[in-house]
Protein backbone atom coordinates (compact mmCIF):
# COMPACT_ATOMS: atom_id res chain seq x y z
CA UNK A 1 0.00 0.00 0.00
CA UNK A 2 1.25 3.51 -0.82
CA UNK A 3 2.53 5.31 2.24
CA UNK A 4 2.10 9.03 2.78
CA UNK A 5 5.13 11.00 3.90
CA UNK A 6 4.98 14.66 4.86
CA UNK A 7 8.23 16.62 4.70
CA UNK A 8 8.18 19.67 6.96
CA UNK A 9 10.52 22.64 7.07
CA UNK A 10 10.34 26.33 7.87
CA UNK A 11 8.97 27.41 4.49
CA UNK A 12 7.59 24.24 2.92
CA UNK A 13 9.84 25.13 0.02
CA UNK A 14 13.54 25.46 0.65
CA UNK A 15 15.03 22.69 2.74
CA UNK A 16 11.98 20.42 2.40
CA UNK A 17 12.53 20.24 -1.38
CA UNK A 18 16.02 18.86 -0.82
CA UNK A 19 14.70 16.26 1.61
CA UNK A 20 11.67 15.35 -0.52
CA UNK A 21 13.84 14.67 -3.59
CA UNK A 22 16.14 12.39 -1.58
CA UNK A 23 13.27 10.44 -0.04
CA UNK A 24 11.57 9.99 -3.45
CA UNK A 25 14.82 8.78 -5.07
CA UNK A 26 15.56 6.42 -2.20
CA UNK A 27 12.06 4.93 -2.04
CA UNK A 28 11.86 4.35 -5.79
CA UNK A 29 15.27 2.60 -5.71
CA UNK A 30 13.98 0.35 -2.89
CA UNK A 31 10.60 -0.17 -4.54
CA UNK A 32 8.70 1.39 -1.64
CA UNK A 33 5.51 2.99 -2.96
CA UNK A 34 5.29 6.44 -1.44
CA UNK A 35 3.65 9.82 -1.92
CA UNK A 36 5.77 12.69 -0.63
CA UNK A 37 4.14 16.02 0.25
CA UNK A 38 5.89 19.17 1.46
CA UNK A 39 4.61 21.56 4.07
CA UNK A 40 5.65 24.26 6.47
CA UNK A 41 5.70 23.97 10.21
CA UNK A 42 3.42 27.00 10.74
CA UNK A 43 0.62 25.12 8.97
CA UNK A 44 0.63 22.24 11.45
CA UNK A 45 0.89 24.00 14.82
CA UNK A 46 -2.70 23.02 15.53
CA UNK A 47 -2.06 19.36 14.68
CA UNK A 48 -2.35 17.28 11.49
CA UNK A 49 -3.68 13.86 10.42
CA UNK A 50 -3.63 11.56 7.40
CA UNK A 51 0.09 10.87 7.03
CA UNK A 52 2.11 7.77 7.94
CA UNK A 53 5.34 9.59 8.67
CA UNK A 54 6.73 13.10 9.04
CA UNK A 55 10.34 13.85 8.11
CA UNK A 56 11.29 17.28 9.42
CA UNK A 57 14.28 19.58 9.19
CA UNK A 58 12.92 21.73 12.00
CA UNK A 59 11.39 20.97 15.42
CA UNK A 60 7.78 19.77 15.27
CA UNK A 61 5.11 21.07 17.70
CA UNK A 62 3.97 18.67 20.42
CA UNK A 63 0.39 18.77 19.09
CA UNK A 64 1.45 16.51 16.19
CA UNK A 65 0.90 12.81 17.00
CA UNK A 66 2.35 11.25 13.80
CA UNK A 67 5.83 9.66 14.10
CA UNK A 68 8.59 12.14 13.26
CA UNK A 69 12.10 11.47 11.91
CA UNK A 70 14.67 14.26 11.99
CA UNK A 71 15.95 15.00 8.48
CA UNK A 72 18.73 17.46 9.28
CA UNK A 73 21.30 14.95 8.06
CA UNK A 74 20.03 15.40 4.49
CA UNK A 75 21.18 19.02 4.66
CA UNK A 76 24.52 18.55 6.38
CA UNK A 77 25.34 15.37 4.43
CA UNK A 78 26.43 13.65 7.67
CA UNK A 79 24.55 10.46 8.59
CA UNK A 80 22.48 10.50 5.42
CA UNK A 81 22.38 6.71 4.99
CA UNK A 82 21.34 6.01 8.57
CA UNK A 83 18.39 8.40 8.27
CA UNK A 84 17.26 6.76 5.02
CA UNK A 85 17.35 3.35 6.74
CA UNK A 86 15.24 4.72 9.58
CA UNK A 87 12.70 5.98 7.05
CA UNK A 88 12.62 2.60 5.27
CA UNK A 89 11.99 0.87 8.61
CA UNK A 90 9.23 3.27 9.57
CA UNK A 91 7.49 2.71 6.25
CA UNK A 92 7.72 -1.09 6.20
Amino acid at each position, binding site marked *: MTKKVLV*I*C*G*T*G*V*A*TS*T*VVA*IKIKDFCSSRGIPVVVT*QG*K*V*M*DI*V*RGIEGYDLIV*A*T*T*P*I*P*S*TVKIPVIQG*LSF*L*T*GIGNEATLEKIAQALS
Partner: protein
Amino acid sequence: MDLGASIALPILITVFGLMLGEKLPRAFRAGVTIGIGFIGIGLIIGLLFGKVGPAAQGLADRFNVDLTIVDVGWPASAAIAFGSKVGAIIIPICLLMNIFLLAVGLTKTFDIDLWNYWHFAFIGGLVAAITESYAKGIVTALIAMMLTLALADWAAPRIQAHYDYPDISFPHGTSAAYAILAYPLNWVFDRIPGFNKLKADPESIQKRFGIFGETTMLGLFIGLALGVAGFGLDKPREDIIAILGLGITLAAVMLLLPRMVAILMEGLVPISEAARSFVGKRFPGRKFYIGLDSAVVIGQPAVIATSLILVPVTLLTAIALAPLGNKVFPLVDLATIPFIVCLMVPIFGGNIIRSVAGGAILIGGGLFIATAIAPTLTEVAVSSGFNNETGGTISSLVDGANPMTGLFYWLSDIGGWTGIGILGAITLAISIFVKMKVKHNISSSVSH
Protein backbone atom coordinates in the same frame (compact mmCIF):
# COMPACT_ATOMS: atom_id res chain seq x y z
CA MET B 1 15.20 43.96 -24.99
CA ASP B 2 16.85 41.95 -22.21
CA LEU B 3 17.11 38.21 -22.48
CA GLY B 4 15.23 37.68 -19.19
CA ALA B 5 16.08 35.26 -16.44
CA SER B 6 13.89 32.43 -17.75
CA ILE B 7 16.08 32.24 -20.88
CA ALA B 8 19.48 33.25 -19.51
CA LEU B 9 19.55 31.19 -16.33
CA PRO B 10 18.94 27.74 -17.87
CA ILE B 11 21.99 28.30 -20.07
CA LEU B 12 24.16 29.71 -17.25
CA ILE B 13 23.16 26.99 -14.79
CA THR B 14 23.88 24.24 -17.32
CA VAL B 15 27.35 25.65 -17.96
CA PHE B 16 28.03 26.10 -14.26
CA GLY B 17 26.85 22.54 -13.50
CA LEU B 18 29.25 21.18 -16.14
CA MET B 19 32.11 23.20 -14.63
CA LEU B 20 31.42 21.60 -11.23
CA GLY B 21 31.64 18.15 -12.81
CA GLU B 22 27.93 17.42 -13.23
CA LYS B 23 26.92 15.33 -16.28
CA LEU B 24 25.26 17.17 -19.20
CA PRO B 25 21.72 15.70 -19.00
CA ARG B 26 21.47 16.38 -15.26
CA ALA B 27 22.95 19.87 -15.56
CA PHE B 28 20.67 20.73 -18.50
CA ARG B 29 17.55 19.44 -16.72
CA ALA B 30 18.50 21.50 -13.66
CA GLY B 31 18.84 24.60 -15.84
CA VAL B 32 15.50 24.08 -17.60
CA THR B 33 13.73 23.38 -14.28
CA ILE B 34 15.01 26.70 -12.94
CA GLY B 35 13.74 28.46 -16.07
CA ILE B 36 10.29 26.90 -15.51
CA GLY B 37 10.32 28.13 -11.92
CA PHE B 38 10.91 31.66 -13.20
CA ILE B 39 7.99 31.47 -15.61
CA GLY B 40 5.75 30.26 -12.78
CA ILE B 41 6.81 33.00 -10.38
CA GLY B 42 6.25 35.62 -13.10
CA LEU B 43 2.68 34.40 -13.64
CA ILE B 44 1.81 34.62 -9.95
CA ILE B 45 3.35 38.07 -9.53
CA GLY B 46 1.24 39.24 -12.47
CA LEU B 47 -1.87 37.89 -10.76
CA LEU B 48 -0.93 39.62 -7.51
CA PHE B 49 -0.44 42.96 -9.24
CA GLY B 50 -3.59 42.83 -11.31
CA LYS B 51 -5.81 42.05 -8.32
CA VAL B 52 -4.21 43.82 -5.34
CA GLY B 53 -3.29 47.00 -7.20
CA PRO B 54 -6.83 48.35 -7.73
CA ALA B 55 -7.91 47.48 -4.16
CA ALA B 56 -4.83 49.17 -2.64
CA GLN B 57 -5.54 52.22 -4.82
CA GLY B 58 -9.14 52.21 -3.56
CA LEU B 59 -7.86 52.12 0.02
CA ALA B 60 -5.65 55.13 -0.73
CA ASP B 61 -8.49 57.10 -2.37
CA ARG B 62 -11.21 56.29 0.16
CA PHE B 63 -9.33 56.38 3.46
CA ASN B 64 -6.20 58.31 2.58
CA VAL B 65 -4.12 55.29 3.69
CA ASP B 66 -1.51 55.05 0.97
CA LEU B 67 -0.23 51.46 1.09
CA THR B 68 0.07 51.02 -2.67
CA ILE B 69 3.46 49.24 -2.68
CA VAL B 70 2.65 45.54 -2.72
CA ASP B 71 4.80 43.17 -0.63
CA VAL B 72 5.50 40.34 -3.10
CA GLY B 73 7.52 38.50 -0.49
CA TRP B 74 10.67 36.42 -0.42
CA PRO B 75 9.70 34.01 -3.22
CA ALA B 76 9.51 36.88 -5.72
CA SER B 77 12.47 38.71 -4.17
CA ALA B 78 14.66 35.63 -4.53
CA ALA B 79 13.60 35.15 -8.14
CA ILE B 80 14.22 38.81 -8.95
CA ALA B 81 17.63 38.60 -7.25
CA PHE B 82 18.71 35.48 -9.17
CA GLY B 83 17.27 36.98 -12.33
CA SER B 84 19.26 40.22 -12.03
CA LYS B 85 22.59 40.73 -13.80
CA VAL B 86 24.45 40.29 -10.52
CA GLY B 87 22.38 37.20 -9.73
CA ALA B 88 23.38 35.52 -12.98
CA ILE B 89 26.93 34.93 -11.71
CA ILE B 90 26.29 35.08 -7.95
CA ILE B 91 26.72 31.35 -7.29
CA PRO B 92 30.22 30.93 -8.75
CA ILE B 93 31.60 34.20 -7.35
CA CYS B 94 30.21 33.68 -3.84
CA LEU B 95 31.40 30.08 -3.80
CA LEU B 96 34.91 31.27 -4.69
CA MET B 97 34.69 34.05 -2.10
CA ASN B 98 33.69 31.54 0.59
CA ILE B 99 36.56 29.21 -0.32
CA PHE B 100 38.99 32.15 -0.24
CA LEU B 101 37.73 33.29 3.20
CA LEU B 102 38.05 29.74 4.56
CA ALA B 103 41.57 29.47 3.17
CA VAL B 104 42.75 32.73 4.80
CA GLY B 105 40.89 31.92 8.04
CA LEU B 106 38.48 34.87 7.97
CA THR B 107 35.47 32.60 8.39
CA LYS B 108 34.75 29.23 9.96
CA THR B 109 31.56 28.68 7.96
CA PHE B 110 31.21 26.88 4.66
CA ASP B 111 27.89 28.02 3.24
CA ILE B 112 26.65 24.97 1.33
CA ASP B 113 23.23 26.48 1.04
CA LEU B 114 23.60 27.91 -2.49
CA TRP B 115 19.95 28.84 -2.63
CA ASN B 116 20.50 31.53 -0.01
CA TYR B 117 23.10 33.28 -2.11
CA TRP B 118 20.05 35.10 -3.42
CA HIS B 119 20.27 37.46 -0.44
CA PHE B 120 23.67 38.67 -1.67
CA ALA B 121 22.40 38.94 -5.23
CA PHE B 122 19.45 40.95 -3.93
CA ILE B 123 21.73 43.57 -2.37
CA GLY B 124 24.11 43.51 -5.35
CA GLY B 125 21.26 43.80 -7.86
CA LEU B 126 19.78 46.82 -6.06
CA VAL B 127 23.16 48.53 -5.78
CA ALA B 128 23.97 47.86 -9.44
CA ALA B 129 20.66 49.45 -10.44
CA ILE B 130 20.81 52.53 -8.20
CA THR B 131 24.49 53.29 -8.95
CA GLU B 132 24.19 52.17 -12.59
CA SER B 133 27.41 50.22 -12.09
CA TYR B 134 27.72 46.46 -12.50
CA ALA B 135 31.10 46.46 -10.72
CA LYS B 136 29.64 48.19 -7.65
CA GLY B 137 26.85 45.61 -7.58
CA ILE B 138 29.26 42.68 -7.67
CA VAL B 139 31.57 44.13 -5.00
CA THR B 140 28.72 44.94 -2.59
CA ALA B 141 27.28 41.43 -3.09
CA LEU B 142 30.65 39.93 -2.10
CA ILE B 143 30.96 42.25 0.93
CA ALA B 144 27.41 41.30 1.94
CA MET B 145 28.41 37.64 1.87
CA MET B 146 31.57 38.25 3.89
CA LEU B 147 29.59 40.19 6.51
CA THR B 148 26.90 37.48 6.67
CA LEU B 149 29.55 34.79 7.21
CA ALA B 150 31.16 36.86 9.99
CA LEU B 151 27.79 37.41 11.67
CA ALA B 152 27.04 33.68 11.38
CA ASP B 153 30.36 32.81 13.06
CA TRP B 154 29.69 35.42 15.74
CA ALA B 155 26.27 34.11 16.69
CA ALA B 156 27.18 30.43 16.21
CA PRO B 157 28.27 29.49 19.80
CA ARG B 158 25.18 30.99 21.42
CA ILE B 159 22.79 29.62 18.80
CA GLN B 160 24.41 26.17 18.83
CA ALA B 161 23.94 26.07 22.61
CA HIS B 162 20.32 27.28 22.49
CA TYR B 163 19.18 24.95 19.70
CA ASP B 164 21.59 22.09 20.45
CA TYR B 165 22.88 21.75 16.88
CA PRO B 166 26.67 21.27 17.00
CA ASP B 167 28.96 22.58 14.22
CA ILE B 168 26.21 24.40 12.39
CA SER B 169 25.92 28.12 11.72
CA PHE B 170 23.34 30.19 9.89
CA PRO B 171 24.85 32.45 7.22
CA HIS B 172 21.36 33.43 6.23
CA GLY B 173 21.01 36.90 4.75
CA THR B 174 17.78 37.60 6.61
CA SER B 175 18.12 36.19 10.08
CA ALA B 176 21.84 36.89 10.63
CA ALA B 177 21.38 40.64 10.24
CA TYR B 178 18.52 40.74 12.73
CA ALA B 179 20.37 38.54 15.22
CA ILE B 180 23.10 41.11 15.68
CA LEU B 181 20.58 43.91 16.31
CA ALA B 182 18.95 41.81 19.02
CA TYR B 183 21.97 42.30 21.32
CA PRO B 184 21.54 46.08 21.87
CA LEU B 185 17.75 45.66 22.09
CA ASN B 186 18.13 43.01 24.77
CA TRP B 187 20.44 45.35 26.70
CA VAL B 188 17.77 48.06 26.60
CA PHE B 189 14.94 45.64 27.55
CA ASP B 190 16.95 44.51 30.59
CA ARG B 191 16.89 48.10 31.84
CA ILE B 192 13.15 48.80 31.48
CA PRO B 193 11.57 48.31 34.93
CA GLY B 194 8.60 45.93 34.90
CA PHE B 195 9.12 44.94 31.25
CA ASN B 196 12.26 42.98 32.12
CA LYS B 197 10.15 40.60 34.26
CA LEU B 198 7.42 39.79 31.67
CA LYS B 199 7.07 36.27 30.26
CA ALA B 200 4.60 34.37 28.07
CA ASP B 201 3.88 30.70 27.42
CA PRO B 202 4.36 29.47 23.83
CA GLU B 203 1.79 26.64 24.03
CA SER B 204 -1.21 28.84 24.83
CA ILE B 205 -0.17 31.38 22.16
CA GLN B 206 0.03 28.63 19.53
CA LYS B 207 -3.53 27.60 20.36
CA ARG B 208 -4.94 31.13 20.35
CA PHE B 209 -3.06 32.60 17.37
CA GLY B 210 -2.66 29.39 15.34
CA ILE B 211 -4.90 30.68 12.54
CA PHE B 212 -2.32 33.35 11.65
CA GLY B 213 0.06 30.56 10.75
CA GLU B 214 -2.22 29.10 8.09
CA THR B 215 -1.16 31.29 5.23
CA THR B 216 -3.95 30.41 2.81
CA MET B 217 -6.59 31.35 5.41
CA LEU B 218 -4.58 34.46 6.21
CA GLY B 219 -4.47 35.38 2.52
CA LEU B 220 -8.23 34.84 2.21
CA PHE B 221 -9.07 37.04 5.21
CA ILE B 222 -6.67 39.81 4.24
CA GLY B 223 -8.07 39.73 0.71
CA LEU B 224 -11.65 40.02 1.96
CA ALA B 225 -10.77 42.82 4.39
CA LEU B 226 -8.74 44.72 1.78
CA GLY B 227 -11.59 44.22 -0.68
CA VAL B 228 -14.22 45.67 1.68
CA ALA B 229 -11.97 48.62 2.51
CA GLY B 230 -10.81 49.22 -1.05
CA PHE B 231 -13.96 48.58 -3.10
CA GLY B 232 -16.67 49.51 -0.57
CA LEU B 233 -20.26 48.34 -1.09
CA ASP B 234 -21.70 51.15 -3.18
CA LYS B 235 -22.64 48.77 -5.98
CA PRO B 236 -23.47 45.65 -3.92
CA ARG B 237 -23.46 42.96 -6.62
CA GLU B 238 -20.31 44.07 -8.43
CA ASP B 239 -18.46 44.93 -5.23
CA ILE B 240 -19.27 41.65 -3.50
CA ILE B 241 -17.99 39.71 -6.51
CA ALA B 242 -14.82 41.81 -6.54
CA ILE B 243 -14.30 41.34 -2.79
CA LEU B 244 -14.78 37.56 -2.92
CA GLY B 245 -12.52 37.41 -5.97
CA LEU B 246 -9.74 39.27 -4.19
CA GLY B 247 -10.04 36.96 -1.17
CA ILE B 248 -9.69 33.74 -3.14
CA THR B 249 -6.93 35.23 -5.32
CA LEU B 250 -4.81 36.17 -2.31
CA ALA B 251 -5.37 32.73 -0.78
CA ALA B 252 -4.17 31.28 -4.09
CA VAL B 253 -1.10 33.52 -4.22
CA MET B 254 -0.07 32.53 -0.70
CA LEU B 255 -0.15 28.85 -1.70
CA LEU B 256 1.08 29.08 -5.30
CA LEU B 257 4.00 31.49 -5.00
CA PRO B 258 6.03 29.24 -2.66
CA ARG B 259 5.11 26.22 -4.85
CA MET B 260 6.70 27.95 -7.82
CA VAL B 261 9.84 28.62 -5.82
CA ALA B 262 9.94 24.93 -4.93
CA ILE B 263 10.33 24.23 -8.66
CA LEU B 264 13.25 26.65 -8.81
CA MET B 265 14.71 24.96 -5.74
CA GLU B 266 14.33 21.51 -7.32
CA GLY B 267 16.51 22.69 -10.20
CA LEU B 268 19.12 24.01 -7.82
CA VAL B 269 19.53 20.81 -5.77
CA PRO B 270 21.78 18.93 -8.26
CA ILE B 271 23.96 22.04 -8.63
CA SER B 272 24.20 22.41 -4.84
CA GLU B 273 25.29 18.80 -4.48
CA ALA B 274 27.86 19.11 -7.25
CA ALA B 275 29.28 22.19 -5.51
CA ARG B 276 29.43 20.39 -2.17
CA SER B 277 31.38 17.41 -3.51
CA PHE B 278 33.56 19.79 -5.57
CA VAL B 279 34.61 21.65 -2.41
CA GLY B 280 34.71 18.47 -0.30
CA LYS B 281 37.28 16.95 -2.64
CA ARG B 282 39.47 20.04 -2.48
CA PHE B 283 39.37 20.53 1.30
CA PRO B 284 39.63 16.95 2.61
CA GLY B 285 39.39 16.66 6.40
CA ARG B 286 39.13 20.43 6.84
CA LYS B 287 37.01 21.44 9.83
CA PHE B 288 34.36 24.13 9.44
CA TYR B 289 30.85 25.01 10.49
CA ILE B 290 28.27 23.89 7.97
CA GLY B 291 26.21 26.89 6.97
CA LEU B 292 22.49 26.12 6.76
CA ASP B 293 19.22 27.86 6.04
CA SER B 294 17.71 29.12 9.28
CA ALA B 295 14.50 27.32 8.23
CA VAL B 296 15.77 24.44 10.36
CA VAL B 297 15.15 26.32 13.63
CA ILE B 298 11.77 27.78 12.76
CA GLY B 299 9.82 24.97 14.40
CA GLN B 300 10.99 26.05 17.87
CA PRO B 301 7.83 26.78 19.94
CA ALA B 302 9.06 30.25 20.99
CA VAL B 303 9.80 31.20 17.35
CA ILE B 304 6.36 30.03 16.19
CA ALA B 305 4.59 31.82 19.03
CA THR B 306 6.49 35.07 18.42
CA SER B 307 5.79 34.96 14.68
CA LEU B 308 2.08 34.25 15.12
CA ILE B 309 1.66 37.34 17.31
CA LEU B 310 3.76 39.43 14.93
CA VAL B 311 1.44 38.75 11.95
CA PRO B 312 -1.40 41.05 13.13
CA VAL B 313 1.13 43.36 14.80
CA THR B 314 2.93 43.86 11.47
CA LEU B 315 -0.30 44.64 9.62
CA LEU B 316 -1.38 47.17 12.25
CA THR B 317 2.11 48.69 12.36
CA ALA B 318 2.10 49.17 8.59
CA ILE B 319 -1.26 50.99 8.74
CA ALA B 320 -0.19 53.07 11.76
CA LEU B 321 3.06 54.10 10.05
CA ALA B 322 1.34 55.08 6.78
CA PRO B 323 0.96 58.75 7.80
CA LEU B 324 4.70 58.82 8.56
CA GLY B 325 5.67 57.64 5.10
CA ASN B 326 5.32 53.84 4.99
CA LYS B 327 3.72 52.77 1.72
CA VAL B 328 4.28 49.01 1.90
CA PHE B 329 1.29 46.73 2.34
CA PRO B 330 2.65 43.60 4.12
CA LEU B 331 1.31 40.53 2.40
CA VAL B 332 3.33 37.53 1.17
CA ASP B 333 6.08 38.01 3.75
CA LEU B 334 3.62 37.78 6.63
CA ALA B 335 4.44 34.09 6.19
CA THR B 336 8.18 34.83 6.39
CA ILE B 337 8.21 36.56 9.79
CA PRO B 338 9.70 33.43 11.43
CA PHE B 339 12.91 34.09 9.47
CA ILE B 340 13.14 37.63 10.78
CA VAL B 341 12.84 36.52 14.41
CA CYS B 342 14.29 33.00 14.52
CA LEU B 343 17.85 34.00 15.46
CA MET B 344 16.72 36.88 17.68
CA VAL B 345 14.71 34.54 19.91
CA PRO B 346 17.77 32.74 21.37
CA ILE B 347 19.46 36.09 22.01
CA PHE B 348 16.36 37.20 23.93
CA GLY B 349 16.73 33.94 25.91
CA GLY B 350 13.59 32.47 24.34
CA ASN B 351 11.47 35.22 25.91
CA ILE B 352 8.41 35.76 23.68
CA ILE B 353 7.43 39.20 24.99
CA ARG B 354 10.90 40.55 24.25
CA SER B 355 11.01 38.84 20.88
CA VAL B 356 7.67 40.35 19.85
CA ALA B 357 8.74 43.82 21.01
CA GLY B 358 12.13 43.53 19.30
CA GLY B 359 10.57 42.11 16.14
CA ALA B 360 7.93 44.86 15.98
CA ILE B 361 10.55 47.60 16.38
CA LEU B 362 12.80 46.19 13.65
CA ILE B 363 9.95 45.37 11.25
CA GLY B 364 8.41 48.80 11.83
CA GLY B 365 11.70 50.53 11.02
CA GLY B 366 12.23 48.12 8.14
CA LEU B 367 8.99 49.21 6.46
CA PHE B 368 10.64 52.56 5.69
CA ILE B 369 13.61 50.75 4.13
CA ALA B 370 11.21 48.64 2.07
CA THR B 371 9.42 51.82 0.96
CA ALA B 372 12.70 53.51 0.00
CA ILE B 373 14.05 50.65 -2.12
CA ALA B 374 10.71 49.86 -3.84
CA PRO B 375 11.23 51.87 -7.06
CA THR B 376 14.69 50.36 -7.59
CA LEU B 377 13.47 46.83 -6.83
CA THR B 378 10.63 47.28 -9.31
CA GLU B 379 13.14 48.43 -11.93
CA VAL B 380 15.34 45.36 -11.28
CA ALA B 381 12.27 43.11 -11.50
CA VAL B 382 11.29 44.51 -14.88
CA SER B 383 14.81 44.14 -16.28
CA SER B 384 14.91 40.55 -14.94
CA GLY B 385 12.01 39.86 -17.27
CA PHE B 386 9.05 40.07 -14.89
CA ASN B 387 6.06 41.61 -16.55
CA ASN B 388 4.73 44.78 -14.97
CA GLU B 389 1.87 45.75 -17.25
CA THR B 390 -0.13 47.52 -14.56
CA GLY B 391 2.83 49.73 -13.67
CA GLY B 392 2.60 49.03 -9.94
CA THR B 393 5.43 49.23 -7.42
CA ILE B 394 6.64 46.21 -5.47
CA SER B 395 8.73 45.57 -2.39
CA SER B 396 9.15 42.90 0.26
CA LEU B 397 9.95 42.48 3.93
CA VAL B 398 12.49 39.72 3.21
CA ASP B 399 14.90 41.24 2.26
CA GLY B 400 13.41 44.57 1.26
CA ALA B 401 12.98 45.67 4.89
CA ASN B 402 16.26 44.16 6.06
CA PRO B 403 18.59 46.59 7.88
CA MET B 404 21.55 45.12 5.99
CA THR B 405 19.85 45.81 2.65
CA GLY B 406 19.12 49.35 3.81
CA LEU B 407 22.69 50.03 4.96
CA PHE B 408 24.33 48.68 1.79
CA TYR B 409 21.85 50.39 -0.53
CA TRP B 410 22.09 53.74 1.21
CA LEU B 411 25.87 53.85 1.64
CA SER B 412 26.66 52.88 -1.96
CA ASP B 413 24.00 55.26 -3.28
CA ILE B 414 25.26 58.36 -1.45
CA GLY B 415 28.93 57.38 -1.13
CA GLY B 416 29.77 55.54 -4.36
CA TRP B 417 33.09 53.71 -4.10
CA THR B 418 33.92 55.61 -0.87
CA GLY B 419 30.73 54.30 0.73
CA ILE B 420 31.48 50.78 -0.50
CA GLY B 421 35.03 51.14 0.86
CA ILE B 422 33.59 52.00 4.28
CA LEU B 423 31.32 48.92 4.10
CA GLY B 424 34.33 46.78 3.20
CA ALA B 425 36.43 48.20 6.04
CA ILE B 426 33.64 47.67 8.62
CA THR B 427 33.11 44.13 7.36
CA LEU B 428 36.81 43.31 7.53
CA ALA B 429 37.00 44.74 11.07
CA ILE B 430 34.01 42.61 12.16
CA SER B 431 35.51 39.50 10.50
CA ILE B 432 38.82 39.98 12.32
CA PHE B 433 37.08 40.72 15.62
CA VAL B 434 34.95 37.57 15.27
CA LYS B 435 38.00 35.53 14.29
CA MET B 436 39.71 36.50 17.58
CA LYS B 437 36.56 35.99 19.63
CA VAL B 438 35.59 32.62 18.15
CA LYS B 439 39.13 31.34 18.57
CA HIS B 440 38.98 32.40 22.21
CA ASN B 441 35.76 30.41 22.73
CA ILE B 442 37.24 27.24 21.31
CA SER B 443 40.51 27.45 23.27
CA SER B 444 38.66 28.11 26.54
CA SER B 445 36.46 25.07 26.06
CA VAL B 446 39.53 22.90 25.42
CA SER B 447 41.33 24.03 28.59
CA HIS B 448 38.43 22.99 30.83
